[in-house]
Protein backbone atom coordinates (compact mmCIF):
# COMPACT_ATOMS: atom_id res chain seq x y z
CA UNK A 1 0.00 0.00 0.00
CA UNK A 2 1.37 3.31 -0.97
CA UNK A 3 1.85 5.93 1.74
CA UNK A 4 1.72 8.82 -0.72
CA UNK A 5 -0.94 11.42 0.10
CA UNK A 6 -3.34 12.08 -2.71
CA UNK A 7 -4.98 15.49 -3.01
CA UNK A 8 -8.02 16.45 -5.00
CA UNK A 9 -6.15 19.44 -6.53
CA UNK A 10 -3.60 18.67 -9.25
CA UNK A 11 0.12 18.64 -8.39
CA UNK A 12 1.77 22.02 -8.54
CA UNK A 13 3.25 22.54 -11.96
CA UNK A 14 6.87 23.49 -11.62
CA UNK A 15 7.35 26.94 -13.06
CA UNK A 16 10.26 27.46 -15.38
CA UNK A 17 12.61 30.00 -13.88
CA UNK A 18 12.66 33.31 -15.78
CA UNK A 19 16.28 33.55 -16.94
CA UNK A 20 16.46 37.36 -17.35
CA UNK A 21 16.43 40.12 -14.77
CA UNK A 22 13.03 41.77 -14.71
CA UNK A 23 13.58 45.37 -15.77
CA UNK A 24 10.39 47.03 -14.52
CA UNK A 25 10.74 46.28 -10.77
CA UNK A 26 14.31 47.63 -10.80
CA UNK A 27 13.18 50.85 -12.48
CA UNK A 28 10.29 51.29 -10.02
CA UNK A 29 12.56 50.80 -7.00
CA UNK A 30 15.21 53.16 -8.37
CA UNK A 31 12.81 55.98 -9.21
CA UNK A 32 10.91 55.60 -5.92
CA UNK A 33 14.10 55.87 -3.87
CA UNK A 34 15.31 58.79 -6.00
CA UNK A 35 12.00 60.59 -5.46
CA UNK A 36 12.32 60.02 -1.70
CA UNK A 37 15.90 61.29 -1.60
CA UNK A 38 15.16 64.40 -3.70
CA UNK A 39 12.02 65.36 -1.79
CA UNK A 40 13.87 64.64 1.45
CA UNK A 41 16.74 66.94 0.49
CA UNK A 42 14.22 69.60 -0.60
CA UNK A 43 12.32 69.58 2.70
CA UNK A 44 15.41 69.30 4.88
CA UNK A 45 17.00 72.25 3.06
CA UNK A 46 13.82 74.32 3.30
CA UNK A 47 12.73 73.46 6.84
CA UNK A 48 16.15 73.65 8.45
CA UNK A 49 17.10 76.60 6.24
CA UNK A 50 20.43 74.96 5.37
CA UNK A 51 22.63 77.24 3.32
CA UNK A 52 25.83 75.54 2.28
CA UNK A 53 28.50 77.20 0.20
CA UNK A 54 31.94 76.46 -1.19
CA UNK A 55 33.38 72.97 -0.93
CA UNK A 56 30.64 71.46 1.33
CA UNK A 57 27.98 72.57 -1.17
CA UNK A 58 29.95 71.11 -4.09
CA UNK A 59 30.35 67.79 -2.29
CA UNK A 60 26.65 67.55 -1.44
CA UNK A 61 25.66 68.54 -4.99
CA UNK A 62 28.02 65.97 -6.51
CA UNK A 63 26.59 63.32 -4.17
CA UNK A 64 23.06 64.27 -5.15
CA UNK A 65 23.88 64.00 -8.84
CA UNK A 66 25.49 60.61 -8.24
CA UNK A 67 22.37 59.21 -6.52
CA UNK A 68 20.49 58.10 -9.71
CA UNK A 69 23.65 56.50 -11.10
CA UNK A 70 24.39 54.69 -7.83
CA UNK A 71 20.78 53.48 -7.59
CA UNK A 72 20.99 52.17 -11.15
CA UNK A 73 24.30 50.39 -10.40
CA UNK A 74 22.86 48.76 -7.26
CA UNK A 75 19.39 47.80 -8.47
CA UNK A 76 20.00 47.17 -12.17
CA UNK A 77 23.65 46.52 -12.94
CA UNK A 78 24.58 44.45 -9.86
CA UNK A 79 21.32 42.51 -9.85
CA UNK A 80 21.95 41.66 -13.48
CA UNK A 81 24.76 39.37 -12.38
CA UNK A 82 22.29 37.26 -10.41
CA UNK A 83 20.26 36.47 -13.53
CA UNK A 84 20.81 33.24 -15.45
CA UNK A 85 21.22 35.15 -18.69
CA UNK A 86 22.59 38.60 -17.79
CA UNK A 87 22.71 41.57 -20.14
CA UNK A 88 26.36 42.29 -20.74
CA UNK A 89 26.33 45.74 -22.30
CA UNK A 90 24.33 47.77 -19.80
CA UNK A 91 27.36 49.61 -18.42
CA UNK A 92 28.72 50.26 -21.93
CA UNK A 93 25.38 51.76 -23.02
CA UNK A 94 25.21 53.97 -19.92
CA UNK A 95 28.78 55.26 -20.27
CA UNK A 96 28.62 55.81 -24.04
CA UNK A 97 25.35 57.75 -23.69
CA UNK A 98 26.90 59.87 -20.94
CA UNK A 99 30.00 60.59 -23.03
CA UNK A 100 28.03 61.19 -26.24
CA UNK A 101 25.78 63.64 -24.40
CA UNK A 102 28.74 65.54 -23.02
CA UNK A 103 30.97 65.46 -26.09
CA UNK A 104 28.46 65.80 -28.92
CA UNK A 105 24.78 66.30 -28.19
CA UNK A 106 24.68 68.97 -25.47
CA UNK A 107 27.42 71.25 -26.94
CA UNK A 108 26.14 70.81 -30.50
CA UNK A 109 22.53 71.48 -29.49
CA UNK A 110 23.55 74.57 -27.51
CA UNK A 111 25.59 75.96 -30.39
CA UNK A 112 23.08 75.10 -33.09
CA UNK A 113 19.75 75.89 -31.48
CA UNK A 114 20.67 78.57 -28.89
CA UNK A 115 17.42 77.75 -27.12
CA UNK A 116 18.09 80.03 -24.15
CA UNK A 117 18.10 83.04 -26.51
CA UNK A 118 14.62 82.59 -27.92
CA UNK A 119 12.54 79.76 -26.48
CA UNK A 120 11.86 81.23 -23.00
CA UNK A 121 10.17 84.27 -24.63
CA UNK A 122 7.80 82.23 -26.77
CA UNK A 123 4.19 81.25 -26.09
CA UNK A 124 3.41 77.82 -24.59
CA UNK A 125 2.63 75.98 -27.84
CA UNK A 126 5.69 77.42 -29.59
CA UNK A 127 7.84 76.46 -26.61
CA UNK A 128 6.56 72.87 -26.65
CA UNK A 129 7.26 72.62 -30.38
CA UNK A 130 10.57 74.43 -30.01
CA UNK A 131 11.89 72.16 -27.27
CA UNK A 132 10.54 69.10 -29.11
CA UNK A 133 12.34 69.86 -32.37
CA UNK A 134 15.58 70.96 -30.74
CA UNK A 135 16.71 69.51 -27.42
CA UNK A 136 14.04 66.79 -27.38
CA UNK A 137 15.04 65.30 -30.70
CA UNK A 138 18.73 65.64 -29.82
CA UNK A 139 18.26 63.65 -26.61
CA UNK A 140 15.96 61.03 -28.15
CA UNK A 141 18.19 60.34 -31.15
CA UNK A 142 21.29 60.12 -28.94
CA UNK A 143 19.70 57.49 -26.70
CA UNK A 144 18.32 55.62 -29.70
CA UNK A 145 21.58 55.57 -31.67
CA UNK A 146 23.66 54.46 -28.69
CA UNK A 147 21.33 51.55 -27.91
CA UNK A 148 20.93 50.67 -31.59
CA UNK A 149 24.64 50.51 -32.37
CA UNK A 150 25.70 48.96 -29.05
CA UNK A 151 23.20 46.12 -28.71
CA UNK A 152 20.88 45.87 -31.69
CA UNK A 153 19.84 43.28 -32.81
CA UNK A 154 21.71 40.54 -30.94
CA UNK A 155 21.48 42.18 -27.51
CA UNK A 156 17.68 42.24 -27.65
CA UNK A 157 16.76 38.64 -26.83
CA UNK A 158 13.44 39.45 -25.16
CA UNK A 159 11.34 42.61 -25.11
CA UNK A 160 12.45 43.48 -21.55
CA UNK A 161 16.03 43.85 -22.84
CA UNK A 162 14.93 46.95 -24.71
CA UNK A 163 13.57 48.53 -21.51
CA UNK A 164 16.74 47.65 -19.59
CA UNK A 165 19.10 49.11 -22.19
CA UNK A 166 17.11 52.29 -22.75
CA UNK A 167 16.84 52.78 -18.98
CA UNK A 168 20.66 52.58 -18.85
CA UNK A 169 20.90 55.16 -21.64
CA UNK A 170 18.44 57.44 -19.84
CA UNK A 171 20.51 57.29 -16.63
CA UNK A 172 23.64 58.28 -18.58
CA UNK A 173 21.99 61.17 -20.39
CA UNK A 174 20.21 62.51 -17.31
CA UNK A 175 23.45 62.34 -15.32
CA UNK A 176 25.16 64.56 -17.87
CA UNK A 177 22.21 67.01 -17.92
CA UNK A 178 22.46 67.22 -14.13
CA UNK A 179 26.22 67.84 -14.24
CA UNK A 180 25.77 70.64 -16.80
CA UNK A 181 22.96 72.16 -14.76
CA UNK A 182 25.09 72.12 -11.61
CA UNK A 183 28.18 73.59 -13.29
CA UNK A 184 26.45 76.23 -15.43
CA UNK A 185 23.68 77.44 -13.13
CA UNK A 186 25.15 77.16 -9.61
CA UNK A 187 21.68 76.33 -8.22
CA UNK A 188 20.54 76.14 -4.61
CA UNK A 189 20.51 72.64 -3.15
CA UNK A 190 16.71 72.30 -3.03
CA UNK A 191 16.40 73.41 -6.66
CA UNK A 192 19.10 70.96 -7.73
CA UNK A 193 17.39 68.11 -5.86
CA UNK A 194 14.11 68.56 -7.71
CA UNK A 195 15.88 69.16 -11.04
CA UNK A 196 17.80 65.88 -10.67
CA UNK A 197 14.50 64.07 -10.23
CA UNK A 198 12.82 65.94 -13.09
CA UNK A 199 15.68 65.21 -15.50
CA UNK A 200 15.72 61.54 -14.56
CA UNK A 201 11.94 61.20 -14.79
CA UNK A 202 11.73 62.91 -18.19
CA UNK A 203 14.67 60.96 -19.56
CA UNK A 204 13.16 57.69 -18.34
CA UNK A 205 9.73 58.49 -19.80
CA UNK A 206 11.39 59.21 -23.15
CA UNK A 207 13.32 55.97 -22.97
CA UNK A 208 10.11 53.96 -22.40
CA UNK A 209 8.79 55.21 -25.73
CA UNK A 210 12.01 54.39 -27.54
CA UNK A 211 12.22 50.98 -25.86
CA UNK A 212 8.75 50.02 -27.03
CA UNK A 213 9.53 51.16 -30.58
CA UNK A 214 12.77 49.21 -30.84
CA UNK A 215 11.30 46.10 -29.20
CA UNK A 216 8.42 46.10 -31.66
CA UNK A 217 10.80 46.52 -34.60
CA UNK A 218 12.92 43.63 -33.29
CA UNK A 219 10.21 41.12 -32.38
CA UNK A 220 7.16 42.05 -34.44
CA UNK A 221 6.62 43.37 -37.93
CA UNK A 222 5.20 46.82 -37.38
CA UNK A 223 5.07 49.59 -39.94
CA UNK A 224 8.57 50.93 -40.75
CA UNK A 225 7.35 54.29 -39.46
CA UNK A 226 6.82 53.01 -35.90
CA UNK A 227 10.34 53.79 -34.65
CA UNK A 228 10.11 57.25 -36.21
CA UNK A 229 6.75 57.84 -34.49
CA UNK A 230 8.11 56.70 -31.14
CA UNK A 231 11.14 58.96 -31.60
CA UNK A 232 8.80 61.88 -32.32
CA UNK A 233 6.62 61.08 -29.28
CA UNK A 234 9.70 60.73 -27.13
CA UNK A 235 10.90 64.18 -28.20
CA UNK A 236 7.38 65.55 -27.62
CA UNK A 237 7.47 64.24 -24.05
CA UNK A 238 10.64 66.27 -23.52
CA UNK A 239 9.14 69.42 -25.07
CA UNK A 240 5.90 69.15 -23.08
CA UNK A 241 7.71 68.27 -19.89
CA UNK A 242 10.16 71.19 -19.97
CA UNK A 243 7.48 73.71 -20.94
CA UNK A 244 4.68 72.63 -18.64
CA UNK A 245 6.95 72.00 -15.68
CA UNK A 246 8.47 75.45 -16.15
CA UNK A 247 4.98 76.96 -16.22
CA UNK A 248 4.02 75.17 -13.00
CA UNK A 249 7.23 75.90 -11.13
CA UNK A 250 7.68 79.57 -11.98
CA UNK A 251 5.50 81.97 -10.06
CA UNK A 252 3.26 84.23 -12.12
CA UNK A 253 3.09 87.99 -11.82
CA UNK A 254 0.54 89.18 -9.32
CA UNK A 255 -0.14 92.22 -7.17
CA UNK A 256 0.05 89.90 -4.17
CA UNK A 257 3.58 88.88 -5.11
CA UNK A 258 4.80 85.67 -6.67
CA UNK A 259 6.51 82.59 -5.39
CA UNK A 260 7.96 79.60 -7.20
CA UNK A 261 6.21 76.26 -6.65
CA UNK A 262 8.87 73.58 -7.16
CA UNK A 263 6.69 70.82 -5.70
CA UNK A 264 4.16 71.29 -8.51
CA UNK A 265 7.00 70.55 -10.91
CA UNK A 266 7.90 67.45 -8.91
CA UNK A 267 4.28 66.27 -8.97
CA UNK A 268 4.08 66.89 -12.71
CA UNK A 269 7.26 64.91 -13.41
CA UNK A 270 5.99 62.02 -11.28
CA UNK A 271 2.58 61.95 -12.95
CA UNK A 272 4.16 62.13 -16.42
CA UNK A 273 6.55 59.27 -15.68
CA UNK A 274 3.85 57.07 -14.12
CA UNK A 275 1.39 57.77 -16.95
CA UNK A 276 3.90 57.01 -19.71
CA UNK A 277 5.23 54.00 -17.78
CA UNK A 278 1.76 52.48 -17.26
CA UNK A 279 0.80 52.95 -20.91
CA UNK A 280 4.05 51.50 -22.24
CA UNK A 281 3.97 48.60 -19.74
CA UNK A 282 0.45 47.82 -20.96
CA UNK A 283 1.65 47.88 -24.59
CA UNK A 284 4.57 45.62 -23.70
CA UNK A 285 2.28 43.15 -21.91
CA UNK A 286 -0.17 43.16 -24.81
CA UNK A 287 2.59 42.58 -27.34
CA UNK A 288 4.05 39.73 -25.27
CA UNK A 289 0.64 38.10 -24.87
CA UNK A 290 0.00 38.43 -28.59
CA UNK A 291 3.35 36.77 -29.24
CA UNK A 292 2.60 33.91 -26.81
CA UNK A 293 -0.80 33.33 -28.39
CA UNK A 294 0.75 33.28 -31.85
CA UNK A 295 3.36 30.75 -30.65
CA UNK A 296 0.67 28.56 -29.10
CA UNK A 297 -1.40 28.70 -32.27
CA UNK A 298 1.58 27.55 -34.33
CA UNK A 299 2.49 24.71 -31.91
CA UNK A 300 1.50 21.24 -33.16
Amino acid at each position, binding site marked *: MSSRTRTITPDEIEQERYPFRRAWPSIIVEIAILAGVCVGVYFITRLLNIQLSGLPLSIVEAALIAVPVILWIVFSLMREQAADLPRFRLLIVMIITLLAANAVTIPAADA*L*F*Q*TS*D*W*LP*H*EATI*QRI*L*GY*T*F*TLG*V*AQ*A*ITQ*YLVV*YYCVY*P*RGLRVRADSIAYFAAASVGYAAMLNIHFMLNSTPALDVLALTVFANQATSLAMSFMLAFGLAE*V*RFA*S*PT*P*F*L*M*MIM*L*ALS*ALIFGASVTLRGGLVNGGFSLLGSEASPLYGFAFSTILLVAVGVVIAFFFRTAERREEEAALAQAP
Partner: protein
Amino acid sequence: MSTTIIEVREAPVELTLRQRWSHYFAIIYAILAVIIGINLRDTALYATVPYSNPQVGITAFYPNHWLIDNSGNYVFRVRDMSQTGFKTAMQVNIIPINQDMTTRNILETLILNRSQTDSTFRVLSQEPIQLSDGTEATQMRSTFVASDEDPFLESIPTVVERLDVIAVQGGQAIIISFLSDAQTFESNYPRFEQFLNDIDF
Protein backbone atom coordinates in the same frame (compact mmCIF):
# COMPACT_ATOMS: atom_id res chain seq x y z
CA MET B 1 53.47 20.48 -37.96
CA SER B 2 50.55 22.70 -38.81
CA THR B 3 48.20 24.37 -36.35
CA THR B 4 44.55 24.63 -37.17
CA ILE B 5 42.65 27.53 -35.68
CA ILE B 6 38.95 27.02 -35.37
CA GLU B 7 37.06 30.24 -34.87
CA VAL B 8 33.65 29.85 -33.34
CA ARG B 9 31.20 32.65 -34.05
CA GLU B 10 27.53 33.06 -33.52
CA ALA B 11 25.51 33.21 -36.69
CA PRO B 12 24.83 36.85 -37.56
CA VAL B 13 21.27 38.07 -37.09
CA GLU B 14 20.07 39.28 -40.45
CA LEU B 15 17.94 42.41 -40.36
CA THR B 16 14.78 42.37 -42.40
CA LEU B 17 14.06 45.06 -44.95
CA ARG B 18 11.35 46.45 -42.67
CA GLN B 19 13.82 46.73 -39.78
CA ARG B 20 16.37 48.49 -41.97
CA TRP B 21 13.81 51.00 -43.21
CA SER B 22 12.59 51.54 -39.68
CA HIS B 23 16.12 52.65 -38.74
CA TYR B 24 16.48 54.81 -41.85
CA PHE B 25 13.16 56.54 -41.17
CA ALA B 26 14.26 57.26 -37.59
CA ILE B 27 17.45 58.89 -38.87
CA ILE B 28 15.57 60.83 -41.56
CA TYR B 29 13.11 62.08 -38.95
CA ALA B 30 15.96 63.27 -36.73
CA ILE B 31 17.55 65.18 -39.64
CA LEU B 32 14.22 66.76 -40.60
CA ALA B 33 13.53 67.67 -36.98
CA VAL B 34 16.90 69.41 -36.71
CA ILE B 35 16.11 71.41 -39.87
CA ILE B 36 12.70 72.33 -38.43
CA GLY B 37 14.38 73.28 -35.15
CA ILE B 38 16.84 75.59 -36.90
CA ASN B 39 13.99 77.10 -38.88
CA LEU B 40 11.99 77.71 -35.68
CA ARG B 41 15.07 79.30 -34.12
CA ASP B 42 15.61 81.62 -37.08
CA THR B 43 11.93 82.54 -37.19
CA ALA B 44 11.98 83.45 -33.51
CA LEU B 45 15.42 85.05 -33.36
CA TYR B 46 15.03 87.16 -36.49
CA ALA B 47 11.35 88.00 -36.10
CA THR B 48 10.83 91.74 -36.48
CA VAL B 49 8.28 94.40 -35.66
CA PRO B 50 7.69 97.30 -38.08
CA TYR B 51 8.35 100.88 -36.99
CA SER B 52 7.30 103.86 -39.03
CA ASN B 53 7.77 107.56 -38.38
CA PRO B 54 6.31 109.66 -41.23
CA GLN B 55 7.46 112.90 -39.58
CA VAL B 56 11.11 112.10 -40.16
CA GLY B 57 10.46 109.68 -43.03
CA ILE B 58 11.88 106.48 -41.52
CA THR B 59 10.58 102.95 -41.80
CA ALA B 60 12.43 100.20 -39.96
CA PHE B 61 11.98 96.66 -38.66
CA TYR B 62 13.37 96.07 -35.19
CA PRO B 63 13.75 92.69 -33.40
CA ASN B 64 10.67 91.25 -31.80
CA HIS B 65 10.61 91.42 -27.97
CA TRP B 66 13.01 94.38 -27.92
CA LEU B 67 11.87 97.45 -25.99
CA ILE B 68 11.33 100.57 -28.05
CA ASP B 69 11.53 104.08 -26.71
CA ASN B 70 11.58 107.46 -28.40
CA SER B 71 11.78 109.76 -25.43
CA GLY B 72 15.52 110.51 -25.65
CA ASN B 73 17.51 112.74 -27.98
CA TYR B 74 17.06 110.28 -30.84
CA VAL B 75 14.28 109.33 -33.23
CA PHE B 76 13.95 105.93 -31.63
CA ARG B 77 15.95 103.34 -29.75
CA VAL B 78 15.32 99.63 -29.25
CA ARG B 79 16.97 97.54 -26.54
CA ASP B 80 17.16 93.86 -25.75
CA MET B 81 16.00 93.89 -22.14
CA SER B 82 16.44 90.12 -21.75
CA GLN B 83 20.23 90.46 -21.73
CA THR B 84 22.08 90.53 -18.47
CA GLY B 85 24.52 93.40 -17.98
CA PHE B 86 24.63 95.98 -20.74
CA LYS B 87 21.48 95.91 -22.86
CA THR B 88 22.25 95.58 -26.57
CA ALA B 89 20.73 98.57 -28.33
CA MET B 90 20.11 100.00 -31.77
CA GLN B 91 19.20 103.61 -32.21
CA VAL B 92 18.47 106.02 -35.02
CA ASN B 93 19.24 109.69 -34.80
CA ILE B 94 18.85 112.52 -37.30
CA ILE B 95 20.93 115.70 -37.27
CA PRO B 96 20.14 118.61 -39.56
CA ILE B 97 23.26 119.75 -41.41
CA ASN B 98 24.09 122.59 -43.75
CA GLN B 99 25.05 122.17 -47.38
CA ASP B 100 28.80 122.53 -46.77
CA MET B 101 29.10 119.77 -44.14
CA THR B 102 30.59 116.45 -45.18
CA THR B 103 30.47 113.06 -43.47
CA ARG B 104 33.98 113.70 -42.20
CA ASN B 105 32.79 116.87 -40.44
CA ILE B 106 29.96 114.98 -38.79
CA LEU B 107 32.30 112.23 -37.61
CA GLU B 108 34.72 114.73 -36.14
CA THR B 109 31.89 116.48 -34.34
CA LEU B 110 30.69 113.19 -32.90
CA ILE B 111 34.21 112.20 -31.76
CA LEU B 112 34.77 115.60 -30.19
CA ASN B 113 31.47 115.56 -28.32
CA ARG B 114 31.89 112.01 -27.05
CA SER B 115 35.53 112.51 -26.02
CA GLN B 116 34.54 115.54 -23.97
CA THR B 117 31.71 113.79 -22.16
CA ASP B 118 33.27 110.34 -21.75
CA SER B 119 36.93 109.86 -20.90
CA THR B 120 36.78 106.15 -21.79
CA PHE B 121 35.62 106.78 -25.38
CA ARG B 122 38.07 105.44 -28.00
CA VAL B 123 37.72 105.29 -31.79
CA LEU B 124 38.74 101.95 -33.27
CA SER B 125 38.20 102.46 -37.01
CA GLN B 126 36.46 104.47 -39.70
CA GLU B 127 35.65 103.16 -43.15
CA PRO B 128 33.29 103.92 -46.04
CA ILE B 129 30.50 101.40 -46.71
CA GLN B 130 27.57 101.06 -49.06
CA LEU B 131 24.08 100.42 -47.68
CA SER B 132 21.78 97.83 -49.24
CA ASP B 133 19.90 100.50 -51.24
CA GLY B 134 23.18 101.79 -52.71
CA THR B 135 23.52 104.83 -50.42
CA GLU B 136 27.11 105.74 -49.63
CA ALA B 137 27.79 105.87 -45.89
CA THR B 138 30.61 105.82 -43.38
CA GLN B 139 30.89 103.52 -40.40
CA MET B 140 32.83 104.24 -37.25
CA ARG B 141 33.68 101.65 -34.61
CA SER B 142 34.39 102.87 -31.12
CA THR B 143 34.38 101.67 -27.53
CA PHE B 144 33.55 103.10 -24.14
CA VAL B 145 33.03 101.83 -20.63
CA ALA B 146 29.49 101.68 -19.27
CA SER B 147 28.76 101.53 -15.57
CA ASP B 148 25.47 100.61 -13.97
CA GLU B 149 23.37 103.68 -13.30
CA ASP B 150 22.55 102.42 -9.83
CA PRO B 151 25.74 102.71 -7.69
CA PHE B 152 24.29 100.38 -5.03
CA LEU B 153 24.35 97.42 -7.42
CA GLU B 154 28.17 97.32 -7.14
CA SER B 155 28.59 95.80 -10.60
CA ILE B 156 31.77 95.66 -12.65
CA PRO B 157 31.75 98.19 -15.56
CA THR B 158 31.23 96.78 -19.04
CA VAL B 159 33.31 97.52 -22.12
CA VAL B 160 30.82 98.48 -24.82
CA GLU B 161 31.53 98.39 -28.51
CA ARG B 162 29.67 100.90 -30.62
CA LEU B 163 29.14 101.00 -34.37
CA ASP B 164 27.79 104.18 -35.97
CA VAL B 165 26.69 104.22 -39.58
CA ILE B 166 26.38 107.77 -40.92
CA ALA B 167 24.60 108.61 -44.14
CA VAL B 168 23.93 112.09 -45.49
CA GLN B 169 20.66 112.56 -47.31
CA GLY B 170 18.35 115.52 -48.02
CA GLY B 171 20.15 118.03 -45.83
CA GLN B 172 20.28 115.79 -42.80
CA ALA B 173 22.66 113.21 -41.37
CA ILE B 174 21.14 109.90 -40.37
CA ILE B 175 23.12 108.14 -37.66
CA ILE B 176 22.24 104.50 -37.10
CA SER B 177 24.04 103.13 -34.05
CA PHE B 178 24.56 99.67 -32.63
CA LEU B 179 25.76 99.26 -29.04
CA SER B 180 26.65 95.95 -27.50
CA ASP B 181 28.81 94.43 -24.78
CA ALA B 182 32.19 93.96 -26.51
CA GLN B 183 32.19 90.27 -25.56
CA THR B 184 28.89 89.59 -27.33
CA PHE B 185 29.28 92.14 -30.12
CA GLU B 186 30.02 89.62 -32.87
CA SER B 187 27.17 87.30 -31.93
CA ASN B 188 24.70 90.19 -31.75
CA TYR B 189 25.93 91.87 -34.93
CA PRO B 190 23.72 89.87 -37.38
CA ARG B 191 20.66 91.52 -35.77
CA PHE B 192 22.04 94.95 -36.57
CA GLU B 193 23.00 93.87 -40.08
CA GLN B 194 19.40 92.81 -40.67
CA PHE B 195 18.12 96.05 -39.14
CA LEU B 196 20.44 98.07 -41.38
CA ASN B 197 19.37 96.19 -44.50
CA ASP B 198 15.67 96.75 -43.78
CA ILE B 199 15.75 100.41 -42.76
CA ASP B 200 14.33 102.85 -45.26
CA PHE B 201 14.77 106.61 -45.03
